């Protein structure tokens, strides 16, 4: 258990540093899509919910787990759709008439 905790903290720290470095470079143009994309990625929490509902260890866990799957899945689906819609809108200058 103790080893797991330390490994987890290492992973968290490294991921936070990577996050800072990568996200700092995101253009302010794209801050709204950034937020909707990270939101969709964050919904990876669905894997925890799937295990909880799927294992069906108690009725409470199964019910709460299913609601959690619904919430996370709607974030995944909605988040990816809207992010892609937004990013498709960003176009560079078309060749303009003088």
């Amino acid at each position, binding site marked *: 258990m103790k080893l797991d905790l330390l490994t987890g903290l290492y992973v968290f720290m490294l991921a936070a540093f990577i996050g800072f470095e990568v996200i700092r470079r995101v253009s302010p143009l794209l801050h709204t899509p950034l937020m909707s994309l*990270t939101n969709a990625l964050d919904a990876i929490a669905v894997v925890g919910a*799937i295990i*909880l509902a799927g294992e069906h260890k108690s009725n409470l866990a199964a019910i709460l787990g299913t609601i959690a799957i619904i919430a996370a899945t709607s974030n995944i689906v909605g988040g990816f759709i809207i992010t892609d819609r937004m*990013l498709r809108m960003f176009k560079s200058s078309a060749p303009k008439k003088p």
Partner: protein
Amino acid sequence: MIFNESFIEVTYIIATALFILSLKWLSSPKTSRWGVWAGEIGMALAIIGTLLYRGIVDYKLVAIGLVVGTIIGVPLGKVAMTAVPQRTALSHAFGALCVTLVGTSEFYLRSPDISPFMMSVLSMEVILGSLTFTGSLMAAGKLQEVLPQRPITYKGQNFVNLGMLALAIAIAVILVLHPDQTRLFPALIFIPLVFGVMLIIPIGGADMPTVISLLNSYAGLSAAAMGFVLNSKLLIIAGALDGSSGFILSVIMSKAMNRSFTNVLFGGFGQIQAASGGEKEQRPVKSATPEEAAAILAAASRVVVVPGYGMAVAQAQHKVRELFDALTKRGVNVTFGIHPVAGRMPGHMNVLLAEADIPYDRLLEMDAINGDMAQTDVALVIGANDVTNPAARTDASSPIYGMPILDVDKARTVMVIKRSMAAGFAGIENPLYYMDHNLMLFGDAKNFVGNIVRELSGSGSDGH
């Protein structure tokens, strides 16, 4: 089934790499769509890997969850661009709901056999999750205008809020020491739920960009805490990425308003304004008609448009594109100056203008455009107020003193489209409006811009 277990881990490792690439590719509009695809593939892999987990006995519930979630998710992905801020707040709430429910189930499944460390992260997961859930719902309600947008403040508000937070933490400490006290657990959910509501009550619309970013950060941290509880590195990483993204955006937003987080959350902008909003300036202002405005714009060689939340409210972005086209056709150099906190969430204005087909290389950040302001013939302010207020530079007594602004007052002519002289959302007087080189264009942003466009194209076809 060793093979099965390691197969799942491999899908998680690939998913992690794809998530990081996904964010990396978002750094430029050119590669950004790859980012979405990488995220989608990573997500699909991780879900498939999880479904292969041998502990899953009840596939029916999982299928119901995935199908219903998709049915809810699709319309949420297809909302109008103007509704993106409230949609984002709503998705923070959904994410937090998922985390809270999983945390709750884990507690009841494991109690009383929970180590102090496990109970600490579990408490953090549930506290952050619940307060983010109701806080984000409140923010979404305010943005959707089903709740009053005005900040509501009362005496002792901070005392009440901090007291609630302290109480929740105290209960968490008791549970860490005595994880068998299952009766205390509902309070660990309920108090942060109320706290989330109370936290957003005093927040006004102008503070929404900071608050949404902060809620984003909380949602990420709660997911990372869930990763510790479930011992899932994938979840710790995704949560850390989301948390740091929200944190970076919060810092950018706070800096752009020259305020600290604590000031946004506990400062009560409303109280400061009440003190300074008393005196009203009675000086004369100059105004202009659409014809005059069109003539001035047509004679300019460099125009900077400064959009704000008012443009979004008036749905004027498409008319603004027509203005952009009409002026560009006449050889006028038109750029847009975007303040980081313009609108209701980070990047809000960019999305609306991109939707209206304005090329993104015309959308410039505040720092990029301020240096050129003195060489600008006309600065046209559409539905922005505080972010152009020169008092932020000059008047130390102003509540927004020190906030970085777009220096539109340095342009040769400033034109401000505004409904009336009423003070803006924050209730702060804007001395810009009384300056000699400033013209007020009174009217609805959409109609007024439409009228200017008609003047420009009308005189153009007449050959004047």
